[in-house]
């Protein structure tokens, strides 16, 4: 099986190459088939490999395939090696599976688009990069994928490049994530000098021996890696790019900004958990960042009117949950939530895309409404996705994954009541904004004329995803409720188990509280947005409420802050110095010699008497020197 690994990223790469080089000369159908087909092939390979992996677990616990040595300098020898273990298997599976569905969906979605070759090429390249990211056996190769997905994200956010805003959104995403990446690169330097290698297994192996838990170097390293993760995963303080990234086509949002790329940070931290474990401080920071992000993003989601922005903030918030889980040491829970989130968030985005498409590119929820009847398939699938997002108890997958996180945020070593309470508050908010979104979009009266209805190519992926959003949770049930641990069996060889604090008990009570919170959230939204909408409307007259609204709508004014603190000064300085102040120095020299020329040239007056005087002065000068000295 080892030697099949290269096929997994190989197919998307081939697809990308074909579409880039020959895309213009192919028929629309061929382009779509190439784009979607390559991913499907890749997904099939994943299924085969994954099946084998699960049925006949390899002795080493992983499949490894070395393709070639990237370079070799002074015993530092990063290789192009693919490495598959339980953790990467989960990611590879989610990526290829969801990507395949999204690609199929896109064939229909992009049917009107002239430049679909570019779209599919970028999407394929993205999948390739993401697969490299999760399959990389060393951090340098991971970094390649890491930056590669950044590039693809840039390409796809700016896919409709004719509108400048899209381009700027793409640029913002790239640059902000680059800030994190740069910190991460510095982290890599430290790792190279500490361990002499960037091989993940080797580092994980020797880190506990070389570093003491809580040592400065471990913390530094962990923080730098974390910075990379924060950028990619849109967590505080590098989160501002994600809402703008919704400028891209909806499948892109589904694939990149919900299901896969933004979870790269989660992957990185899970992958390098050994280092993070050595730095409890960093873990605490991760937990706090996760908690803060989930609240901040959740509150922002409540007031958004653009359906995709709601989903974007919700993504941030959900990744906040994953970070929280990572922070408290619930590694497996984080990854599990990643998987479930990928299903329902992809579903939500695709469905939202279908709605937007059907309503002539209308993003504003308040101009939708009443779609329950007109778009039944979309409605039901969207409802399932929403339920899963809101973690509707028992029947949805989202419930099971979020429940774990909630529990661990209380009970694990790193957990604390405060974190738990934040998470709980988050759950409430999540339920609230999800309900709000559902109500505004599907109930009420239709406000926009319906255009094209989604075809089968679009609805079938939705249905599949909906099924997964419901049932995927059952592979991992709490031990007091079914106790299914299929999922953690996959990851347990890679990720350490979660330590439970000695003093806690009564998991059941916490689950009940969580359930009640969710229901409370749903009910609150139901009251406010359906039963008694006047409350909201009245609130809008209050100045402070309006201010709060604006504040939340803008995502807590982070954009404004960064704009004032970083962007404007730099741009101002850059424009101030456009002509290069150093050049002025050289121009000054030129000017001086020019002056000297004019002054000297003045002495060449042409007057003979003056020349005689000059000669005389020269003579006197020489004689004087001689006499004085």
């Amino acid at each position: 099986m080892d030697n099949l690994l290269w096929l997994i990223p190989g197919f998307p790469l081939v697809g990308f190459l074909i579409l880039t080089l020959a895309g213009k000369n192919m028929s629309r159908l061929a382009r779509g088939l190439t784009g979607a087909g390559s991913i499907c092939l890749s997904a099939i390979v994943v299924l085969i490999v994954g099946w084998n992996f699960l049925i006949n677990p390899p002795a080493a616990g992983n499949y490894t395939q070395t393709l070639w040595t990237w370079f070799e300098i002074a015993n530092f020898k990063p290789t192009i090696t693919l490495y598959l273990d339980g953790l990467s298997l989960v990611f590879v599976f989610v990526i290829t599976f969801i990507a395949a569905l999204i690609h199929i969906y896109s064939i229909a979605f992009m049917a009107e688009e002239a430049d679909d070759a570019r779209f599919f090429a970028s999407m394929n390249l993205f999948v390739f990069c993401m697969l490299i990211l999760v399959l990389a056996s060393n951090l340098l190769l991971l970094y390649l994928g890491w930056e590669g997905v950044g590039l693809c994200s840039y390409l796809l956010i700016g896919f409709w490049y004719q509108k400048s805003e899209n381009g700027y959104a793409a640029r913002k995403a790239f640059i902000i994530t680059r800030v994190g990446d740069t910190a991460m690169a510095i982290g890599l330097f430290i790792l190279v000098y500490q361990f002499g290698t960037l091989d993940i297994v080797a580092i994980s192996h020797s880190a506990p021996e070389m570093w003491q838990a809580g040592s400065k170097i471990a913390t530094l390293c962990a923080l730098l890696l974390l910075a990379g993760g924060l950028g990619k995963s849109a967590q505080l303080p590098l989160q501002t790019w994600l809402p703008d990234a919704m400028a891209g086509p909806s499948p892109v949002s589904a694939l990149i900004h919900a299901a896969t790329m933004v979870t790269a940070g989660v992957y990185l931290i899970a992958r390098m958990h050994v280092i993070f474990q050595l730095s409890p401080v960093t873990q605490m920071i991760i937990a706090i960042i996760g908690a803060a992000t989930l609240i901040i993003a959740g509150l922002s989601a409540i007031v958004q009117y653009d359906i995709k922005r709601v989903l974007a903030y919700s993504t941030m918030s959900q990744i906040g949950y994953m970070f929280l889980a990572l922070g408290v040491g619930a590694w497996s829970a984080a990854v599990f939530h990643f998987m479930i989130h990928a299903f329902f968030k992809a579903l939500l985005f695709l469905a939202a895309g279908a709605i937007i498409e059907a309503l002539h590119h209308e993003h504003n929820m308040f101009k939708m409404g009443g779609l329950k009847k007109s778009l039944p398939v979309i409605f039901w699938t969207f409802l399932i996705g929403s339920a899963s997002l809101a973690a509707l108890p028992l029947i949805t997958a989202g419930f099971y994954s979020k429940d774990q996180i909630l529990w661990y945020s209380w009970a694990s070593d790193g957990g604390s009541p405060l974190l738990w309470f934040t998470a709980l508050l988050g759950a409430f908010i999540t339920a609230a904004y999800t309900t709000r979104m559902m109500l505004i979009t599907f109930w009420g009266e239709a406000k926009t004329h319906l255009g094209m209805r989604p075809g089968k190519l679009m609805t079938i992926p939705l249905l599949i995803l909906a099924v997964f959003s419901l049932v995927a949770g059952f592979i991992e049930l709490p031990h007091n409720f079914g106790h299914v641990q299929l999922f953690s069996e996959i990851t347990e060889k890679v990720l350490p188990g979660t330590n439970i604090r000695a003093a806690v008990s009564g998991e059941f009570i916490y689950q009940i509280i969580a359930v009640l919170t969710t229901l409370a959230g749903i009910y609150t939204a139901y009251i406010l947005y359906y039963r008694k909408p006047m409350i909201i409307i009245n609130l809008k007259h209050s100045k402070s409420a309006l201010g709060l609204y604006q504040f939340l709508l803008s995502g807590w004014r982070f954009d404004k802050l960064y704009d004032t603190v970083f962007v404007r000064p730099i741009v101002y300085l850059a424009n101030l110095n456009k002509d290069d102040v150093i050049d002025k120095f050289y121009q000054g020299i030129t000017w001086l010699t020019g002056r000297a020329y004019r002054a000297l040239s003045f002495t060449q007056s042409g007057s003979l008497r003056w020349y005689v005087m000059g000669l005389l002065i020269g003579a006197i000068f020489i004689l004087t020197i001689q006499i004085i000295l």
Partner: protein
Amino acid sequence: MILIYLIGILTFGSALTLLSGQLNKGLPKWFALLTLLSGFVVLLVFWISNYKEVSLQSTNTWITEYYHNWIPAFGISFHLAMDGLSLLMLLLTFFMGILAVLCSWTEIIERVSFYYFNLLWILAGITGVFIAMDLFLFYFFWEVMLIPMYFLIGIWGSANREYAAYKFFIFTQASGLLMFLSILALYFIHGQNTGIYTFDYFDLLGTQVSPTVAFWLMLGFLIAFAVKLPVVPFHSWLPDAHTEAPTAGSLILAGLLLKTGAYGILRFVLPLFPRASIEIAPWAILLGVIGIIYGAILAYSQTDLKRLIAYTSVSHMGFVMLGIFSFNEFAFQGVVMQLITHAISTGALFLLAGMLKERLHTRDINQMGGLWTSMPKMGVIAMVFVMASLGLPGLGNFVAEFLILLGGFKVHVVLTSIAALGLVFSAMYALRIMQKVFLGPNVNLETAFSAKTDLPDFSLRELLVMGSLSICILWLGLNPQPIIDTVKPMINGLQEIYASPIITQNVK
């Protein structure tokens, strides 16, 4: 023999182009192309056939050598030699030369034969610089390449060409003369110490110079190379020269001329004055880092496309400075990689700028926009090189910058971390190129160039040029090992100098 052949064929070819121009206007470019192709093929064959020897030997770094007396009265000889670094630089020289000819194919319509004559002369000078092992000869070649470059900018450049040409020439000449003084001093010091007056590099290597004097001599060399490289604050000739030069001129400036500066530091400054180099290293690194950030910020603010690209060179060459003065294998290897990859990526960007200029008759990015629609192929290629420029992994520049930063990190954590910020700034300027030129609405374009709504995409020739460059940059990004192996013996040599305790201790 290959060394003589290379210089010979270039001078011979240049004469041929000049003469053939009298017969037919179309001939010179073919002769120029043939000359360069033959040189390139010979070099390539030489590399491949000697690859094992080159990369595996660790003691004798020199592959081939040629010696002939020139001015015996002064101990000046026509001494050429080639090691891995020279070999790579020569390959680059001929490769860039071919591209330069190809990109001038339709751009140059006036005074064709003289143009190619100059082009080949520049390349001859550069070739000489990369293989001269006699300091006098080195300086000789160093200067030889200036005059034709001066003509290239001054005659075929754009509006402000004369100013740019002066500036280029005077900057390089002034700094070159300082180096010349240092060379002379070294010559006499060596002569007085040993009684043997010679300019030969190998003889001068072990010259005993008192630390103070060595410092000043080193500074003479360093300034010459720093101007060429260019290091802030000696960079101000570069934007003007790049901007005004014809496309091939910018290509050669960015691709080759700047590299001679780095080559000079690696070949001469470091081995000749190890202690002084260690002394100056913190300052040199500081300048390098300033260059990285300063160049990037300046690049960001430019509106003239070529000027923008020119400032990115300043930024990229800051990395070279950082790498060279970090004195370890990672950094050295990174520097060599950076030389090659920067030549390719920035060269490609200049080519693109030239092609855009040819089509739009402007370099102002404010007047461009949305060109992807009409020229998607160009857009894709531009994306590749813009990404290379910002150091995207998988493309050559990443390997180079990563290694440099890695090497620098060992020596100077804080400065290297600041340098790493350059990665963010590079994203700023690089994406600005994409945004302003290829993305965005093409409203401006239609109004400004309404006559030319239908812009032609790449021609076959252009596609060939840009395609080969793309393949190169990708190959360098994914499998740079041949490059690394080839320069390894040379870098090992440098390493040994800087690892020896005598040198490192005496500084402290």
